[in-house]
């Protein structure tokens, strides 16, 4: 999926109505500093908005930030569209206020990695690099 000549592209999206974007903006800056090309969608994105943005940006990674507790319904709806838009070969990650007991359910839906609010920036960057290289192989 990733061309060798360009930077890894990450679409960072805020799905649903959740307005807590402090973490998303911190992560965006951190990913930019780590050398990724990042597009931040801003708040209040519908699942349709997100897949369209991911397709148009040719994102290698679709990253979601969710702190409202709506991660399961949102990811369930998004999964259908990710398949429909043939984006299932992209790395899909989610972070935010996500209880440990829901991590497994998210993996089952198709989310590749889940981070919580205390995950360090360096761990997020490392995980994306590692997962992305798995995908590339």
């Amino acid at each position, binding site marked *: 999926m990733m061309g060798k000549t360009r930077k890894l592209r990450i679409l960072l999206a805020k799905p649903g109505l959740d307005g807590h974007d402090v973490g998303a903006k911190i992560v965006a800056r951190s990913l930019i500093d780590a050398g990724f090309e990042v597009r931040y969608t801003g708040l209040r994105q519908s699942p349709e908005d997100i897949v369209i943005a991911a397709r148009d940006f040719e994102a290698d990674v679709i990253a979601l930030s969710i702190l409202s507790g*709506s991660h399961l319904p949102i990811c369930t709806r998004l999964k259908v569209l990710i398949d429909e838009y043939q984006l299932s070969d992209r790395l899909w990650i989610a972070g935010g206020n996500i*209880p440990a007991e829901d991590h497994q359910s998210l993996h089952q839906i198709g989310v590749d990695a889940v981070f919580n609010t205390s995950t360090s920036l360096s761990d997020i960057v490392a995980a994306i690099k590692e997962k992305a290289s798995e995908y590339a192989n």
Partner: protein
Amino acid sequence: MNTRTEKDEDRRFNESGIEIKPLYTEAEVAASKVENGEDDDIGAPGQYPFTRGIHREMYRKRPWTMRQYTGFGNAEDTNERFKYLIATGNTGLNVAFDLPTQCGFDSDDEMAKGEVGRVGMAIDTLKDMEIAFDGIDIQNVTVSLTINGTAAIMIAMYLVMAEKRGFDLKGLRGTCQNDILKEFVGRGTWIYPVEPSVRLVADTIEYCAQNAPLYSPVSVCGYHIRESGATPSEEIAHAFCIAKAYLDEGLKRGLEIDAFAYRMSFNFNIFGQFFEQICKFRAGRRLWARILKKQYGAKNAKSMWLRMIAGGGGSGLTIEQPENNIVRGAYYALISALSGAQTIALCCYDEAYTIPSPKAQRLSLRTMQILIEEMGLTDTVDPLAGSYYVETLTNQLETEIIRIMDDVEKRGGIIKLISNGEIQAHVSKGAYEHQKQLESGEFRKVGVNCHEIEEEDQVVEMHPYKIEDVEKQEARLKKVKQQRDPAVIGKALENLGKAANGTENIMPFLIEAVKAYATVGEMNQVLTSVFGRYREPDIFKEHANVAAE
């Protein structure tokens, strides 16, 4: 201690960037005196410039109002929790709304899927508002509505509900957050572009000044700007710039400053360093009084009062070792009590995980009650006054807040800087720098980067999200819609659209629509069709360009 020689690595700074010396004396107090201040900057409580508090007797006469933040599921669930909070000793209510209500969607809207009743109570029509406050004496247990994007609609609903219950609007007390400018910086429940958003705030200010003169239509929030990454002095400075923008809107409507400034209230954060927080409030109180008196020519002392809720502290809490949050909460409450806050809403230790459990809510309440009943915090006014350190830091923070406010003014004013995203970019950079300091260990956080332990399994009890509450809410919405007269609704919404298109105050038209049981979504749709929707400025654009090179 001060026996060491001052090497660079020994120098210490607070979050506002002010250097903390190992010892303070009269000399530091004198040297830090604020430019253009009064002869006596400390003064007496209840007297200008109000450094020591806005009332002469402060908590001696009446302790701070205890107003825990709550709301979830539907109106019945929340009404039950309100009654529990009142029974355990809360003296005010602080209402959390779900995201669809805050963003203007009905519970049956596609955009509301998965969000109904999740982070607050769902309100679709006046019917829900009536149920939420059923059986509650809203004049004695005053209600604060934490809502912004749809604040004008919620104020209309609240006033109609109160009037139907027989309360006289002329004497009705209560508060709405209704600070839309800060929503563009943090919290993010904006709907319309900046200009019509500010017009709606001005409409509520004007309407309340004329019809519900004791109701506080706006509570300006430094709180969320701080949560978004601002320093304590930036928190106050930006909030004051925003508050001045609202005052200016009121003046443009032809209101006299003393006819409405006295209902302006504030909401500030309480996490951070102990003395910096306390002095932030003392400095802010004095500066606000000076601004109102000197810049706005206010004559009524009440217009100069910085009436505030000191609250939350959520960003100070940690996922790690959540019980430590109980201790942090106790210090935050102590900060508020030593700061002369009118109202305190204390965070709960499980908040980094979930909507607080009743037990966690009670614990936060008991934390405040222990200060009142056992610790003697209400016995005397502003007990820290006269401390060399406290007075020096109060002076220094006031000077720093003035510097930031002047800078905002020079760069074009707060509305411009929020519209173009400069404030958002600055604040979010602050949050990023803070996060890096946290990860490098430069900024110490117990349980996070020092004194860590192997965490046990989650110790907090998660708030249940009940799907049947959502179904109940959707069913009620359907029923209310069926019982309405379509002609009356149609007319009310048409009139609302006309008012939005014109320059008239929109409140009477919202009230007409609310009385006809128009839904939040319907009213919002009308307003959106006239005002349009806000689009966030891309604050990472500079980086995108760099990346493209």
